[in-house]
């Protein structure tokens, strides 16, 4: 059951009706049952993995909390009987036990994630380099495993750090991890931001529901009208990349960027809209990424929940670790202050993006994706003094609108190229596509033929172009601080309704025909 199907709409109507119909104390139970029903429909027996993660993380968190409580209690009781050394030793012992408990929880769940998601890839590569060991082709990846595992581990680490107390209600905690709206493609929510909202009963508010529905419709527009239509062309070109060159490849790269944005952010808008109807505010995952002027800014606007998760649980622990402090010192002594400070940041950045890349899937393409993004950001950091000098010499007005637009286009082009390589059948296919851009430039007839061959046709191309323009216009307005939904809600009923009906019929008329298939959300595979 995909978010873009009619059955999902029926499901949502049922869940919302039940949620608002039952007494307050039972509202979270409705969400829990709906979540497991939804998950079971998608994963059947593989539901056992989410149950395993829930149980192990739940127990580990409580164990960590108990150890802390016990240690505090013990110290309070026996403080007078112990000397400073004994207290220190006791505290170190407690910390060690807590750490081991945390590591058990982390490794049990990361182990499963690595085995299920990367086992096949690792074995394939081992088999390539040595003799054939084993095949793991039988593995089916449970839906949303990357999302719920990261969410669970974030919770466990936070409990370890003492950020909040462990959840003592297993069923409520199960809801936090399995909440049906976030299970397919995130966002990766934090316990302190989402859990309480899920457990707390919410009343129905007409205006909030109206707002939520509008956000859902906008999400459907991006997914069904833009992403699925663009997919017709991109899947054809990426599948038969040898047959295309020049402008056909460039169009595929641009359309793929549009497709993945429409698909992912559209899906997030749909679930945020539904959550809003239920009275739940889910984390923002996108902030108009194509207005980013640098790659690092892009990552603060794109898949925000993954970026902030990796920053909090990988980047900062790494950069603040004792080992890195030593590394920073050594670098500073050898290469001077600037490089000594920057190189460790670059190394952490590359590691961070390597994790982000690998998180997406088990293939060399995603390794490249991570290294490329990390590499570009690191290079930018290392060359910053050089850029500053060039700007000074050329007296470029970096505060001008034109410079900002140039930076946005530059970032868009760079990331579109990276994405094109990553989405190709293999890395060599991706680079072959990159080289093909230089061939047969300006062959408009070939481009027209390719558009028609893709099944999009002239009319479909016009629809896609117009829809993309509408999306761009909306994002320009949002970027300039205009809250579209609020502006609409302030209009009189006629304008409002015309807007609603316009959006509904734009989706119904221009969404891809079912014979071509509503495409599964791209991020659902991750």
């Amino acid at each position: 059951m995909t978010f873009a199907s009619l059955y999902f709409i029926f499901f949502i109507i049922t869940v919302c009706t039940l949620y608002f119909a039952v007494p307050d104390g039972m509202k979270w139970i409705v969400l829990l049952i709906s979540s497991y029903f939804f998950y079971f429909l998608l994963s059947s027996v593989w539901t056992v993995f989410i149950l395993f993660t829930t149980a192990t993380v739940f127990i580990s968190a409580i164990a960590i909390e108990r150890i802390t409580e016990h240690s505090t209690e013990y110290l309070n009781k026996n403080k007078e009987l112990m000397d400073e050394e004994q207290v220190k030793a006791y505290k170190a012992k407690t910390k060690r036990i807590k750490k081991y408990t945390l590591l058990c929880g982390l490794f049990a769940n990361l182990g499963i994630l690595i085995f299920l998601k990367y086992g096949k890839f690792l074995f394939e590569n081992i088999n390539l380099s040595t003799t054939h060991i084993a095949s793991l082709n039988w593995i089916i990846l449970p839906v949303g495993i990357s999302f719920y595992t990261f969410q669970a581990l974030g919770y466990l680490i936070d409990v370890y750090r003492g950020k909040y107390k462990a959840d003592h209600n297993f069923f409520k905690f199960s809801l936090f991890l399995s909440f049906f709206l976030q299970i397919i493609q995130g966002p990766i929510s934090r316990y302190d931001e989402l859990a309480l909202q899920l457990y707390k009963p919410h009343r129905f508010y007409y205006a909030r529901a109206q707002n939520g529905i509008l956000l859902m419709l906008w999400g459907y527009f991006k997914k069904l009208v833009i992403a699925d239509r663009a997919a017709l062309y991109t899947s054809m070109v990426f599948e038969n990349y040898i047959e295309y060159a020049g402008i056909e490849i460039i169009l595929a790269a641009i359309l793929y960027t549009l497709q993945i944005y429409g698909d992912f952010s559209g899906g997030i808008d749909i679930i945020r809209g539904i959550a809003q109807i239920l009275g739940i505010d889910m984390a923002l995952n996108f902030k108009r990424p194509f207005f980013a002027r640098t790659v690092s800014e892009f990552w603060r606007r794109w898949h925000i929940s993954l970026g902030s998760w990796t920053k909090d649980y990988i980047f900062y622990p790494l950069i603040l670790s004792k080992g890195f402090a030593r590394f920073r010192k050594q670098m500073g002594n050898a290469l001077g202050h600037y490089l000594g400070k920057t190189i460790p940041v670059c190394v952490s950045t590359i590691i961070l993006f390597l994790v982000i890349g690998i998180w997406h899937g088990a293939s060399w393409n995603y390794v490249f994706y991570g290294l490329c993004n990390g590499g570009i950001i690191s290079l930018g950091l290392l060359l910053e003094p050089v850029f500053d000098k060039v700007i000074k010499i050329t007296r470029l007005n970096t505060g001008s609108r034109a410079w900002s637009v140039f930076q946005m286009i530059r970032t868009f082009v760079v990331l579109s190229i990276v994405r094109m390589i990553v989405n190709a059948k293999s890395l060599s296919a991706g680079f072959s596509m990159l080289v093909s851009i230089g061939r047969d430039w300006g062959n408009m007839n070939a481009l027209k033929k390719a558009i028609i061959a893709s099944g999009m046709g002239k009319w479909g191309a016009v629809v896609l172009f117009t829809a993309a323009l509408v999306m761009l216009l909306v994002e320009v307005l949002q970027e300039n601080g205009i809250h579209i939904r609020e502006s609409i809600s302030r209009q009189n009923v006629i304008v409002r309704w015309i807007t609603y009906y316009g959006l509904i019929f734009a989706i119904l008329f221009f969404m891809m025909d079912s014979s071509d298939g509503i495409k599964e959300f791209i991020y659902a595979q991750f």
Partner: protein
Amino acid sequence: MRSFKIINVFKTVLFMTVLSLLIEVCNFTSIPPQSYTRIMMHEMYGQRENIDVVFLGASHAYRSFDTRILDEQLGMNTFNMGSSSQSVKDSYFLLREMYSHHLPRYCILEMSWARYNIYDFSSNATSSYILYDYFRPSVNKLYYFFSAFNEQTAINAVLPFRRYPITAPSKYLENIKAKMTKEYFGCSYSVAAYDNEHYAGKGYVYRNKGFSRGNVGKVEPYTWSNLNINNEAVYYFDKIYKLCEENGTELILVTAPVPLASVAAVGNYQEAHEFLDSLAEKYGLVHYDFNLAKKALFENRDEYFYDSGHMSGLGANVFSNKVAGILLSHIKDIDDLNEFFYSDTNELMASVDYVLNVWAESREGKLNAYSFHGTDVKPEYEFLYRTKESDKYAVIKAYSSIDHIYFDLIPADAYEVRVNARAGGSSGAFEQYYIYRLDN
């Protein structure tokens, strides 16, 4: 607070009502007016008299069972609920719909073999859309919705206008113009009338013209494989049987005929026939396969068909008279009806002493003639040509058992080649012929 809520409820209801109206406007302007199923369903619901005999099946059914003749011959109220590409599942839900309005005594299920094998189009929901659109709101309709459509196809069942994408605005106007008539609203037969066929009443569709004698040409019927059995069809066959049993309706299986050339072209029609017979046997039903009918019962003639699978009006007329006779005999249990049918395709083909069809294809510099014919027939071919200016044919190669000519032999000014075929030893000018256009 209370009044605020009431206003919101009112606004929501009004919004949804306007939305439904707008969707209806889209349906009205986008969906073309011509639809056999629309009229058929309207007529079924509107039948004042109880329907005694219902025919179910795909296009073979609605083009073969002429209800006008069957009414007269059987002396009962018959109704043809055939529809294009109707699957066995569609038949089941149609029968359920029929039971909510009528109580037929006999249900004749048309048993074209294609309904029991899986093809590329088997997952296509079109056959269900065209029926679902015209089912009246009911529990059966809801059940049909969830059974016939999946995640991908459900949206187009709920919003039929999406199935008719219109790129030229003039098409909307054409549809509106054609629909804003008394005939359309009254479901008049004239709405579903084309140049070569028309809806003739109670589900039957009359086709004006069949093949000319001897011009069957190349036929490409659905193939059959015992490895591709459509289990869903078998499942719904069982449900149809049980539904009939519960309602006291006798289920009778009839396979409407196709040209004998098509039977031969299937290659293993006997396997398909045996499968259908085995279904009948399993449930203790009778199965009358008119593809195996002896001449005494039904003479399979070219002009009774207009393509490789469907009957012309003339054919349906003859067939309906014959099938009525068989049904009457069956009902009255007066004859051993097996004697009217060959026991297998070997026996059938052995009885054919002529060429069933002929066609030609170019291959490796030659024009090759192919044909289907009776088992003991040795076909011979004659190759002729004519120029664009002339309507008379000149012989390139006289009758012989050689089935090809080289293109070098065809004069440069030739416009088309005619291939005549006949059984060896026959003295007729031709039994079958085929025109091969050289400008292809």
